[in-house]
């Protein structure tokens, strides 16, 4: 499917979604509450069938956090980027997509560790790299550490 057809299908699922086509892949912006039902549709509809989550990450934009999901369909060979905005930066929460793509387990552990995003219904949420009692979340922009050296 090309971007226009993808847009039409996605608008049918979620009319409030907005699009950005400036990058290499088309981006779809949704709010964090809509994430799980929307992702399930993307995975399960035959004409979309996004079965391969090849990159999952988070970007700290200071006033909000943006979850970024890179999706690919191995059957239809199309790509899409889903971006879910989390407005609460003090106590960020979002649904886990582990039920849809199993690769999310470790990726979400990593995001929880480095950004402090709590994933609801995650099977085993833990700090993956840093010690359990490490203060702060290193990839946040407001992270400070006395031992950090300015490069």
């Amino acid at each position, binding site marked *: 499917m090309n971007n226009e057809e993808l847009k039409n299908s996605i608008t049918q699922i979620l009319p409030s979604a907005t699009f950005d086509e*400036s*990058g*290499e*892949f088309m*981006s779809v912006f949704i709010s964090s509450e809509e994430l799980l039902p929307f992702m399930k549709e993307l995975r399960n509809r035959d004409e979309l069938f996004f*079965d*391969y*989550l*090849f*990159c999952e*990450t988070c*970007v*700290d934009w200071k006033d909000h956090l943006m979850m*970024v999901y*890179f999706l690919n369909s*191995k059957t239809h*060979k199309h790509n899409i980027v889903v971006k879910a905005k989390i407005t609460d930066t003090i106590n960020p929460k979002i649904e886990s997509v582990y039920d849809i*793509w*199993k*690769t999310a*387990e*470790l*990726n979400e552990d*990593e995001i929880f560790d*480095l950004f402090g995003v709590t994933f609801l219904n995650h099977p*085993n949420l833990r*700090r*993956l*790299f*840093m*010690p359990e009692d490490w203060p702060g979340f*290193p*990839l946040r922009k407001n992270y400070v550490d006395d031992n950090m050296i*300015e*490069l």
Partner: protein
Amino acid sequence: MKLLGEDIVTETGEFIINMGPQHPSTHGVLHLKIWLDGETIKKIEPHLGYIHRSIEKMSEKMSYRQFIYLTSRMDYLSAHMNNQACALVVEKALQVEVPERAKAIRILLAELSRIGSHLLWFASVGLDLGGVTPFFYAFREREAINSLMEENCGARLTQNFHVPGGILEDVNPDFQKRVKEVIKQLKDNFHEYDEILTGNVIFQNRLKGVGYLSKEDAISLGCSGPTARASGVVCDIRKSNPYDGYEKLEFDEVVLTGGDSWARYQVRMAEMLQSIKIIEQMIDNMPEGDIVAKTKNVIKLPKGEFYQRVETARGELGVYIVSEGAATPYRCKYRSPNFANLSAIPIAAKGGKIGDLIAIMATVDLIIPDIDR
């Protein structure tokens, strides 16, 4: 029963053991916590962070000329391909056209590193399963490749040969002759690998039917590279999203449907021959000309988001750069192949014997610094 304050026997009678972080066959500081029922594996939980250097955070403070070289320390066996991914993402954002000669040298060195990486894997898979001799066979050829790298790049493992827009400097005048020597040595000796390991019945029995990974699981777990291709997933980035001129070359994507350790072994062995094929196509018609395109001294990427993927020896490496128009990346994320492939081990090993876990880890071929970053 408790050991160091932790239960080592669960309520259901499962025995918990720790494999690693200092274990000879985990190839680095991988720590697996394993729940065992007798010898049968019930559950595996990877524990990471022993070599976490926060490369993504460091990249946020480095210029676009500097951040390339941090990636050599991620997957140190595919250092050349990692650097290539970073150079390509900068070139894509700046829309710089790389000279043909630079592209050819990039591919030649990338395929040589791929062979070198698979040779080290061949050495260690033999060693893990109890055979010492294959190690010496493989290192004989790997040494020749490393020496060739040293002559041209100045370093044996972390080549750091890329700059945005091309490569650092031209290769030696005798480069073509030396590559042909190395390739000839490899082709002459390749039958020895098959004789000592591939045809060995004991070795085959250790791998056949062990660590089965289905195609659906491989896709759902985000696997890529030889691990996924052995389960029937078509995922070679060199074919699907060609870069640096791979689209002009003739080679086959090796895809098997076995899904077990033996299939993963066969995929890697066949990939070495495909890499030789690529090198032989290129070495006699290397274009002449510039080796680097002109870029500004201080590189500033336009505002936006850029994603570039390359096929390293272990799978798909993705570099995701968020730029705010400054001289440093706002956010730099590496989608590393080993991080995704790691999650295949608990699935593939579940229900098997603990002795087979070594065979599974050997054929999935993890590099731990790439997982931790």
